[in-house]
């Protein structure tokens, strides 16, 4: 993948620390909605099924990824996407100003 240059919005998100805020917001929302606990339980089940010493982290990650994506509550998705687009808008608009 190409490097992120200074002007790309992605970097801007990081630089203005919005990315950090968005991430914290996401984590909080997921926890509040109970998603985190569900995924944890699912991890436990998978580990028990495979055997704690046989399972590898990569297997676990793959198995849980699809489950997590399924279980993601709609409201969280919607709200976060909204926030991201708002932030990007503000970045673009501030860029246009300068």
């Amino acid at each position: 993948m190409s490097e992120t240059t200074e002007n790309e919005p992605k970097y801007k998100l990081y630089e203005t620390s919005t990315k950090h805020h968005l991430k914290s917001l996401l984590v909080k929302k997921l926890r509040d909605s109970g998603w985190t606990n569900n995924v944890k339980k699912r991890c436990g089940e998978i580990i028990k099924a495979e055997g704690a010493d046989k399972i590898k982290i990569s297997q676990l990650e793959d198995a849980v990824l699809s489950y997590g994506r399924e279980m993601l509550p709609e409201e969280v998705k919607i709200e976060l996407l909204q926030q991201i687009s708002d932030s990007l808008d503000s970045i673009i608009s501030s860029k246009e100003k300068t």
Partner: protein
Amino acid sequence: MSGKGTSKAKSKARPKKLITPKNKIPPPPAPLPPSEVVKLEPKIVVVNETDVKPLKPAGGQKLSKATKAATNKKGVKRKVEPLETQPPAQLTMERRTRVIRVPKKNGCEHVTLSEESGCEHLKVYKKNNKDSYLDNFNIIAELSMHWYHIGLPAPQEGNPNGRGLCPQKCFVCKTREGKLHACIDCVFIGCHRINNRSHAIEHYRSEGHTFAVDVVRLDLFCYRCDDYIYDSAFRRSKIQQEVHASEKESNRKDPNSKRARYVSWVPTKEETEKIRKNSTLVPCSGLRGLYNMGATCFMNAVLQVFINNPIIKNYFMSDKHNKALCETAGCMCCEFDNLFQEFFSGETKPYPPCSFLHAMWLSSTELAGYNEQDAHEFYMAAINKMHSDSKEKTADDLNKIDIKCECIMHKTFGGLFQSRIKCKKCNRVSIIFEHLVEWQIHLRGNGIVKKKGGVNGGSKASNEVTETKNSLFDCLDRCTAEEQLEGYTCEKCHEQKNTKRISCRKLPPVLVFIVERFQRTTRTTSKTSKNEEEFEFPEEINMAPWTSRAEEVLEAGGSLDDLPEYKYKLISVVNHEGKINTGHYTTYCKNRGQWFLFDDHAVKLANVEDVLQSKRKAYLCFYMAETIEYDQAQEMAIG
């Protein structure tokens, strides 16, 4: 024998302070009662040692030989040992856990560490890099704290980095996303499995560095197992770094606090070398000779024993008897306090114990003067005088001293001995207790052996050489053996035949053996001569067989193996050379693990072999218990 030391002159003849102590050594803290002692050692909890299912063997991955020298973070070249291909191993791990106490900001936290040690690849790696396998990890961990965990508050406008100063990027693709792995064998950070690519894995394939560390979480990853592995050494190191970082952090966070929080410091190898090269050893204190003031070697010998005795030393060094506060005239405890001050003043020249001698003369007039005296008599006189002058004593009358006396001398040297008299006919048992500060040892050999309870045995020809050995064990056995008692009538059945057995009911913390070297040459004359038989004494002795409890156990048919061990170690020996009327006393004492020979003003290093070789000369032997109970109730249980 000895009364309170009263000064003859009307005015208080308090001796002037001779030397002011230069470096007053702070007294050691008084011992805490057991309930208050905080246990700081890690508790090792053994949990279900079960066999864990064997690990999946790392399926036949051929490893490229990594023979290139690698550079670690500090630019020092480090050679990486090649890993041999391992046959699939059937591993069974014992599961043991260890609880360590991790000091954190508000008190402490108990962290349970499992003592597993990673995968077989890690074992090989550890073996190949025995002392240095944690070095790079420590550096990465420290940096990781700096990058991600400590320092600044949450990211804000204008300060996107915030928590931690610089989140890292993959060296190859410069991404900050996903997980980043830091190689522990060379300077490389690569992205790990982000969007189906992983530069860290490519690094492994090309360089062969099997292990990497997640930069944020500091988990150890093994590329051959393709999984994170748990290793207690690495985990412990991580915790140490976390603690260290939080210490530094709390110092930084609260600059107004009056006291900076303690940050632990471990010296690096260079610093250790520097310290070792540039430091000078402080000369030991507490060792001084005593000038012979005119045939006072008997006093000097016993004084050295008292001064090198840890219990008495602790008593005076913790200021339990302060001569500035004591108002008794001619108080011997004050004299001892003075002696300790002199000995720990930093002066190494010999000390003339004038004031002590003066006080001793006033109290024990029979020992006064410049005649040669007996060390044992002085020992007894000193104990009695110290008892009289002490504030903690429980009985004034010397005949009524019992085991509960709180004065330092009786607490240290006082033991309880019992004589058990048994009637042969009606089996009636009567027990007499005696509180003694010594144990008299009678040697068998030339001359008459005086037994307790009456003189027994005729005079032996002085040329007769008996095969009986005179080791401490034999003497104690003989002393505590059952013997016929003459001249005693059973109160119940008026039986004349009674047996008596001596044993020790309560062992004192310091056990003193007096070897009876006085003996009469014949029964009729009163001439005494010295018995120069060899007395063999050990460096260490278990006193269990001669305690009262042992006697009871043996009589009930049990074995000595059921008894607890009462281990005693030799700490001092007073030797006498010469004849009965004239001679010279010297002492061997153990001071902080090192033996010394004290010959009046001369203090020399000695070996323990020399000490044990003084068989013919040994007169007083001092043994100290290996463990000393502080709790009174437990104390009474000894013996």
